[in-house]
């Protein structure tokens, strides 16, 4: 996860350019209803120019609908869409400075690759398209296939044609609707890097829709997590990962252990929690709801932040760590790490990812263990939520 900070450090272009510049997208109260079903609740969102923005959410949560409203392919039930300084809400798609890479490419079957890519330029009356088309085909490394028809290409190649066909128009905003959805894992990873490279190269605002949280985290510099037609949380990948504000985000983006706890009191900057007859501590600043002693709370910790030791070595756990005892019910060896599932009397099925540095042979299912982690790695969520929201059944 560490490399995700890179795009942040290197300034999101939006920071340089005020939101009014060419490629910023501003949605104000934008919503969509189908009959009495609300596909997208009115949402306010600003996507800075030049950013790689990911719209992440489970299937059916309204991502495509949002994207289509930006592209002009769907009429919003309310609200406005602005691109740069221009209100485009009432404009038909062909008048908007946006291009779309469709979920299943929608390449023109009767035209060859060259003409597919040239389509937008020709419609705008550009006279000599040759140079630009060739350059664009080079960018996506398809120059040698220019005269093939779409059905003669592999899925990954078609996907690159779809990107080239949209990008060649130098839109202010490029909309990508799960463009990698149909590809196998390896190609997907490769295309993610490629898209990221292209985006850095051309500096256009990318709005990328996906339901793959890993994809969103590797590619985007800002992620909006959508759930049931609402944006639950928006931020940089590291920020969303470290500081989820809802159980949905905590479970959907990576994996989280959520422990039902009760606030016992405070100690300096820390909040003290009781879990059964055990005690946990966490920074008050990382607690989302404001709580008082006696309130219920969900204490969260990411599986890789937890260390696991055999109960016989419990004495070696340093002071000041959050500790929970339990019994291993499952251990799966993944290669770089081992994933344990640990049952403790107060919280069932805690997930623990341990790096395979020095494997302890005693850590097998049935073994009594102590889990411990730094209080600073604990976050607190409102207990009045579905604790399993957004869980991905892997």
């Amino acid at each position, binding site marked *: 996860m560490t490399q995700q900070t890179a795009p942040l450090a290197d300034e999101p272009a939006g920071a340089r350019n005020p939101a009014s510049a060419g490629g910023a997208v501003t949605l104000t109260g934008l919503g969509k209803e189908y009959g009495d079903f609300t596909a997208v609740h009115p949402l306010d969102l600003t996507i800075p120019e030049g950013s790689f923005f990911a719209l992440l959410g489970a299937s059916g949560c309204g991502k495509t609908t949002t994207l289509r409203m930006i*592209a*002009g*392919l769907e009429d919003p039930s309310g609200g406005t869409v602005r691109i740069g300084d221009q209100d485009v809400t009432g404009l*038909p*798609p*062909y008048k908007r400075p*946006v*291009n*779309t890479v*469709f979920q*299943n490419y*929608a*390449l*023109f*079957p*009767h*035209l060859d690759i060259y*003409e597919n890519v040239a*389509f*937008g330029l020709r*419609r*705008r009356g550009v006279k000599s398209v040759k140079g630009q088309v060739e350059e664009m085909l080079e960018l996506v490394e398809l120059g040698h296939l220019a005269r093939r028809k779409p059905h003669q290409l592999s899925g990954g190649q078609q996907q690159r044609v779809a990107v080239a*066909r*949209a990008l060649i*128009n130098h839109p202010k905003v490029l909309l990508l609707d799960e463009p990698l959805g149909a590809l196998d894992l390896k190609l997907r990873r490769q295309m993610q890097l490629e898209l990221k490279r292209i985006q850095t190269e051309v500096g256009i605002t990318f709005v990328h829709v996906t339901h793959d949280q890993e994809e969103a985290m590797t590619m985007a510099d800002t992620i909006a997590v959508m759930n049931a037609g609402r944006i639950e949380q928006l931020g940089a990948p590291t920020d969303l990962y470290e500081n989820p504000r809802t159980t949905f985000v905590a479970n959907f983006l990576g994996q989280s252990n959520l422990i039902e706890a009760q606030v016992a009191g405070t100690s300096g900057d820390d909040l003290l929690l009781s879990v059964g007859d055990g005690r946990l501590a966490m920074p008050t600043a990382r607690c989302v709801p404001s709580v008082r002693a006696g309130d219920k709370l969900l204490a969260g910790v990411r599986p890789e932040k937890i260390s696991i030791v055999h109960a016989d070595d419990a004495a070696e756990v340093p002071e000041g760590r959050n500790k929970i005892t339990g019994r291993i019910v499952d251990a799966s060896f993944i290669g770089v790490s081992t994933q344990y599932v640990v049952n403790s009397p107060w919280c069932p099925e805690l997930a623990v990812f341990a790096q395979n540095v020095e494997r302890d042979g005693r850590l097998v299912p049935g073994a009594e263990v102590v889990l411990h982690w730094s209080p600073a790695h604990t976050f607190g969520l409102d207990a009045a939520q579905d604790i399993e929201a957004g869980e991905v059944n892997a």
Partner: protein
Amino acid sequence: MAALSTAPAGAPAEVPPVPPGAAARRRRLVPYWLLLPGILWLLVFFAAPMVYQASTSVQTGSLETGYQVTWHFATYWDAFREYDVFYLRSLIYAGIATVLCLAIGYPLAYTIAFKAGRWRNVLLVMVIAPFFTSFLIRTLAWKTILADDGYVVTVLDKLHILNVTASLGITADDRVLATPLAVVCGLTYNFLPFMILPLYSSLERIDPRLHEAAGDLYARPFTTFRKVTFPISLPGVVAGTLLTFIPASGDYINAELLGSPSEQMIGNVIQSKFLTVLDYPTAAALSFMLMAAILVIVSVYIRKAGTEELV
């Protein structure tokens, strides 16, 4: 003519006694067995009559003395010289009817495919509904519709449209019946479903996202139609025009019922040569020449439609 070469050499219905263990060979023969009914059908109802007619066309003689094959190819030339106007008229009427069918059928097929929503099936049934009555009866119905004192003619007359059509030479004497207009209308009406159905099936298959993609790439709705929808539907256009043009150019019912002697098409001539005058050689020769003409026109058309630069 060329058609003579279709004379087949008896079907190679080779059915060897299967040696043991020749299952693989038997499996290889399966496709031929499956083709057999079709081939037999073609032999009995297409190839054999063709050979028979081909031989008829080069016979001479009379009903009384009987006909002999004398390789009298001059029949072709004589028949052509005598009836060339009818060929021309047939092709022109069929061509106009085809163009009209396309002009009426394309918007209709487009609407059914993209705009009809839940009315789609109802509309399709309405396209096919005329087939529930016979061709002959439907054409006779047009005789009533276009009758001299009927509403249509009265209204057209009141609107002075008949003056316009008369000056174009497609109607005469304030009537529609027994004019080229009536015959072409009949042809258009009767063959319209053969145009609409292939058009519909090729349009219906077009992914609506292609329209969205075109719009997204700065094509206005009409440009989208011109550059995306229409080119993709071309196979339907070709199929529809062939299914309309070919039967229309050989048709004689419409000219017979809705036209006068001066609208007679080549089909009428062939029909009367066969059934009234009983001049079989000429009738057969005329049939072969019609077939050849259609073959030439169709192959030129397909060649052109197939290679046309669509961008």
